[in-house]
């Protein structure tokens, strides 16, 4: 389209300005992460591959939780059951994998992905069919999934096969490229084809303006169910990531990830009103949120301050973003 655009009386300066405006938030989030990393290196000069590996392990489940929430929020919804869905995937995987080898574990993982994707689709279907607001339905189903997880596994149980754990915990390529970083590739592998398809456009469309989407011939119900289903898929990825990184099946491990996922997407520049945002920002935000407790430990501060810092950070970042909008208008 670039050649066609050249015919228009527009300078490249305007085009650049527009690109900066459109992707500005993502660039800012990555810059923030870079700054935080530099600060970390100053605080802890012997920061090495081990610490980096620890960070990627901590960020992996959160990155998936944020991805799951992002796609639902882009479609104009919200999913309060992301955490419990992760827990459900986590305990289902442990029950089935216990005492088996890698090949068997991978088949289990695929089945769990399918099951939890269906659970996500069910979330969406209930919302579309009952027309009850999504926040109510997913609040209700969050209790259902959490209860189900407790039925599957009453208390935290170790026993995820080591080979399966190593899928995330090892560093196959190089010490600085841990497997936990490579596993993030699942996100673009699913997201980019979806984003380029009409179905993906339809998800953005529904979140952007439901009325206009309807007039554009978008099947609203189906698009929303699809968003929740893909959200379920990424929640399942998050649950499996928990299995790999902790080695434990825990029915309560997911609870933390619902709201942390929301934090990550807000920080990552996804509009909670729907239709605006992408995947790059939330993933970086997941890394930022995981880095903060680590930095506190290096500083010898109680890492529980991390929660408070996370809250302050969200307010400041979103406020600066809002300031940018105000300045642009003036």
């Amino acid at each position, binding site marked *: 389209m670039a050649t066609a655009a050249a015919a*228009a009386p527009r300078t490249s300066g305007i085009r650049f300005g527009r690109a900066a405006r459109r992707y500005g938030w993502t660039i800012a989030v990555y810059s923030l992460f870079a700054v935080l990393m530099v600060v970390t290196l100053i605080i802890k000069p012997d920061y090495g591959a081990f610490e980096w590996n620890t960070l990627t392990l901590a960020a992996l489940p959160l990155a998936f939780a944020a991805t799951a929430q992002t796609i639902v929020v882009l479609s104009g919804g919200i999913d309060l059951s992301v955490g419990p869905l992760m827990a459900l995937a986590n305990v289902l995987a442990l029950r089935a994998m216990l005492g088996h080898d890698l090949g068997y574990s991978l088949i289990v993982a695929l089945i769990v992905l399918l099951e939890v994707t269906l659970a996500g689709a069910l979330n969406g279907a209930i919302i579309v069919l009952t027309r009850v607001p999504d926040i109510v339905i997913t609040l209700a189903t969050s209790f259902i999934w959490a209860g189900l997880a407790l039925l599957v596994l009453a208390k935290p149980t170790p026993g995820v096969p080591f080979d399966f754990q190593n899928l995330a915990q090892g560093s196959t390529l190089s010490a600085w490229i841990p497997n936990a970083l490579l596993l993030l590739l699942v996100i673009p592998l699913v997201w980019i084809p979806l984003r380029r398809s009409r179905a993906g*456009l339809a998800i953005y469309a529904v979140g952007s303006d439901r*009325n206009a989407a309807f007039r*554009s011939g978008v099947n609203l119900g189906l698009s929303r169910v699809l968003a929740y289903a893909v959200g379920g898929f990424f929640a399942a990825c998050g649950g499996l990531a928990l299995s790999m990184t902790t080695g434990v099946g825990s029915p309560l491990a997911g609870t933390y990830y619902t709201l942390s996922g929301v934090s990550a997407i807000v920080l990552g520049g996804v509009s909670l009103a729907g*239709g605006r945002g992408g995947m790059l920002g939330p993933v970086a935000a997941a890394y930022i949120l995981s880095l903060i407790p680590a930095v506190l430990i290096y500083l010898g501060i109680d890492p529980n301050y991390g929660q408070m810092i996370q809250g302050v950070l969200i307010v400041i970042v979103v406020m600066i973003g809002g300031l940018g909008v105000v300045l642009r208008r003036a």
Partner: protein
Amino acid sequence: MEPSASAAAPCVYQDPSLLPDLTVLQNLILTATPISSFRRYLADLGLGGFDLSTMPRELARPTLSLLDLARALAIEPQLLLLDEITASLPADLTSRVFSVARQLRTEGRSVIFISHRLAEVSALCDRATVLRDGKTVGVVEPAQGGEERIVKLMLGPVAEEVAAEAASPSTPATGAVAVEVRDLKAGTLNGVSFTLRFGEVLGVAALEGQGEKELFDCMAGVRRPESGQILVGGKARSFGHPADAIRAGLVLIPADRLQALLRQRSVRENIALPFVNRIARWGPINPRREKRRVATAVKRLQIDTRVTSEVRRLSGGNQQKVGIARWLAGGFKTLLCFDPTRGIDIGTKRQIYGLVKELAANGSAVLLFTSELPEIQVACNRVIVLFGGELVDEMPASDADERALLRAAHGLPSEEGE
């Protein structure tokens, strides 16, 4: 379940249906629109070389309407539905839409054109079906002097009386000065001065974007002027907030009714809202008193509803009446009407103009902007014309027919040759 976009008869609505957060190109992909054909029609509409990677969020409304139209044309429909598309278009773009519609006609294709602007109907249409209250009340051939018949059919027997009254010509007012604007500058608005007297309806005629929006916003306290003065009752006032303007007796009736109304609340609460903080202060609301005042206002305006129903369930015309009723109930001195009849049927429209004139006759001052020039002569005593942010002309309503206004609103008559 599949809406009309996939069928052979696409519809272009008053509100553009492009998705604000997808690029134009993505919008086209979403609706499976052939791009080359879209570009060709876009060029016909005067938007050749348009950059498809633009987000509709960043575009002006008229452009969006044209893009919407080009998208509908691109699938080469046999039947095209245009639903009030001209409502958001300035005159020059409207004529481009018309030439495209005529082109379709010569190719043997059909256009259904929905409009409340009679001049457009007679300019474009071969045949007009008149609907009132959901029923067909007549089929007219507008080319042969059918305009009067259309008006009659649309008004129906009851509203005709009101209309006749509203259409009677007005005389210039000589009341005391209500508001004086001195050299006001804000955005496009570049140094405008005029006086508004009690007992008159002062019309503001302008094509879109000549500073009329800024003028009303400044007077209603929505934005601060860059320089200049607004004198109310001879005293210079500075409005930092709409509440300041309301306290000074200046109230705004916006074009977008829902901007001023709480659409999920009842008619009664909406009408009561602006004077709640006057009567009750911070104490409890006196429901009986509230009810009485609201009932008076509703009766006076013939709002077609039970007052406890939600505002969003009312028709556009009735919503606008609620918007006016709240100020009647609250008491005011100066009414600022910014295109109050946009998208309203002609019966209600005339009722609103009748009401505005009645208010003026009872001693209020009214400043009225309307995007439909012929209505100025119907409603106003005097007209000021804005062009390029400056006041270029002033005339009594008797001289302000559509031709004269159009010429003035385009700047100098010799330059444009309208």
